């Protein structure tokens, strides 16, 4: 085996090895992100169910929830920290009364609908968008005429 052949073989091996490491690393990062995102999804459901149950059982919380809107993440209806395993999730809940096509609250004052959004973030940077985003977002609608934990 000539020296160039040996060098070529080593180079090929090195390139392949480095490629493999790179792919493995990115794969692990992506897997971890998927895992954390699934955890964030579960945390979002848990938090929202807890908050909505509180709204249904506490007259004061119910009044605060239905009588005002908190559509801005900088001034949310509710925010806090939820720990799942070793991951810390920071959450913000934003609310907005659903209007009908005339711009009035849908169905008046006792059967309104509320848009409820929860933003769950992990890590320090939640400004990234797209694939690199570390924010999980969930949206649902709740009725003022509801008295269960749907």
């Amino acid at each position, binding site marked *: *085996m000539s020296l160039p052949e040996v060098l070529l*073989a080593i180079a*090929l*091996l090195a390139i*392949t*090895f480095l*490629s*493999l490491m790179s*792919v*493995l690393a990115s*794969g692990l990062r*992506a*897997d971890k992100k*998927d*895992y954390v*995102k*699934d955890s964030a*999804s579960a945390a979002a*459901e848990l938090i929202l169910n807890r908050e909505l*149950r509180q709204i*249904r*059982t506490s007259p004061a919380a119910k009044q605060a929830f239905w009588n005002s809107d908190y559509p801005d993440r900088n001034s949310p209806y509710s925010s806090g920290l939820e720990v799942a395993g070793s991951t810390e999730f920071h959450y913000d809940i934003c609310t907005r009364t*659903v*209007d*009908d*096509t005339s711009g009035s609250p*849908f*169905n*008046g004052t*006792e*059967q*309104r*609908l509320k*848009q409820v*959004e929860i933003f769950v973030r992990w890590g320090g940077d939640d400004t990234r968008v797209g694939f690199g985003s570390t924010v999980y*977002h*969930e*949206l*649902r*609608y*709740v*009725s*003022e*005429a*509801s*008295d*269960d*934990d*749907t």
Partner: protein
Amino acid sequence: MLPHLFNQSRRRGIALLTAVMIALVMSVVARGILHLQIGLTSQQNQLEKRARLAATSGLEYAKSQLAKDTKWKGSDTRGTTVDNGRLTIKEQDGVVIGLMRFEDGGQAQFRIRFNAQDGSGGVDDLGDPSDGYFVDNLYLSMNNLGRSSEADLPRVRSNFKADPSESDGKVPGRSVLIQVEGRAGQGIDGLSPAQPNATPSGHVTQASAQAVLKAKLPETTENAVLQTAGNIDFSGGQLEVSSADTASPAIRSKKKITAQHSDSTGDAPLSMPGGGNVYCQDGALGLTALYDSNQVTVREELPNNDLLQISWDQVEKAGPGYQINAGVYVLWPGIPSASMTDGAPELHYYDMSYQEYRSNIYEPYILQGTLPPDQGVVVNTYFTNTGGEGHGPTSDAPKVRVTNNQIFISGDLTIAKTSNTGDFALIPLCDAPLSSSEPRPPLSAAAADGKTVDIQGGDPLTINIMNSKVQAQGDLVLKGAVLNVNDTTLIGEQNLILNTKSLSVTGSGSDETNLSLYFKGDVTVSTLSTASGPLGTAGDTYGDFSIAGTVYSWGDILADVGSQGGGKFEFRGTMVAYGGNPDDPRDPNSNKGGFRLLADSAKLIYDPTTVTQVVSPEDLGNSIVFTAASLWVK
């Protein structure tokens, strides 16, 4: 040899190198596939969740619409009810289509269909949906709030048309079945608000939310299974209070609450296993019972907190079903014939009030062992004393029927007031004593011709009331040895006296309401079964009493199920002894509105949905809310 060996060695080296490289490449490919799989699974999880969120959001939308209009079934005249950039909802022809937009640009859709898509008319009384609203799923919803009886849900065939000839289950009375389909995925992302029900082009993930919704009044004060203007007195073994609702249960009295053992051994235990509240006058000073303060929170009942108000006008009355004359109907055992063989039992009618019957017929004659000279009018088979056109039962479906010792009532029954009385009493000849101390007639009574009637024996009176509202303008008295009831409401403008040693109640399902009571006077219930023989004969027993519904009295509620060693009392729903007309200002000095219960043990389970058996949801006003009696999200 050397060149050959060298070549062999070089080939081995190349083979080794090739093998290592292939292994590395395969590892990379395998890792990539694994990563792709994990990513796809996570993405699919997110889509499934969005589809579920859409389905449950559609369910919430339905609750808002139903609270506004209890007859709602997806035909809001506004057409497009919401269109705000994040949510678009369109309704037409019994079909609701919603399109939700998420922050990342993704969308989710919900669809609700009341339309059976079975052509003009049909089971839904709707024509087929117009273009753009045809729904290609099997999730048919049905609004049955307006009826107290269950309805058949037609099966939806694979062509998405409902077939009423085959049932896909039952929708309970006073309920709405809402089935919502939620969808998300690339195909849904491509839909536009203008055509939210267009055929998706691309991958779609589906979920569904199915719920049986029941209406209830929101509690403005407390979730109390028992609310009284007067004292609450329990005498017996133990009293347990719990809730079938999400809220903690409570019992409330404007006066005092006492639970004591009937054998004079002291206070009886009051338990609230899931925690709850007791409200009474003077707070803890007003409660006498054995209780765990970690479980039972005692509070003061505030004078300004009113009890649940259900006015007479709100009560859903008996419809124009069958009508019979007011009076007292007495089941006589068979009178021996000339050959001394027993005849068939007969129903004898007296056009008088129950108290008049007691004073003029029962006490002076039957109780003394003599058959009365006034034996009333025999009205066998169809209570035919009423006569007249329009009152008689149809030959194929009699509403009221007497067969030997059995009385059958099905459908609504109103009692026509006569010039003498508005009472309606169905009783046996021995008139079933309500308490062990009440005098009872001798075993037999002699007629003028020397024949005797077996007063305390014979076949016992059995009363069967099915899917009915029975409404009397006076007292309502039912004293059957056996009382079989299914989805029934008893309504009266005076008192109720109910006595049966064997109560059998059934509803549309195990958790459905089955017997509700609304009376302007007192409600008295007893399950005493007296032993045959003279007063004092050993062997008097008490049966159990278990119903689910709403019990509302303007007066007192008295239930005798036998104290310790007697029967069990179980009630699910809401029970109110208002102590007056709920339309009038409360009189704080009234001595009415008390509750007295004697039972070996008692369970009171709060369930606010039972109120719709007494009041139609559309008469509950705009403040009603909906709760899912059952819910599946998948």
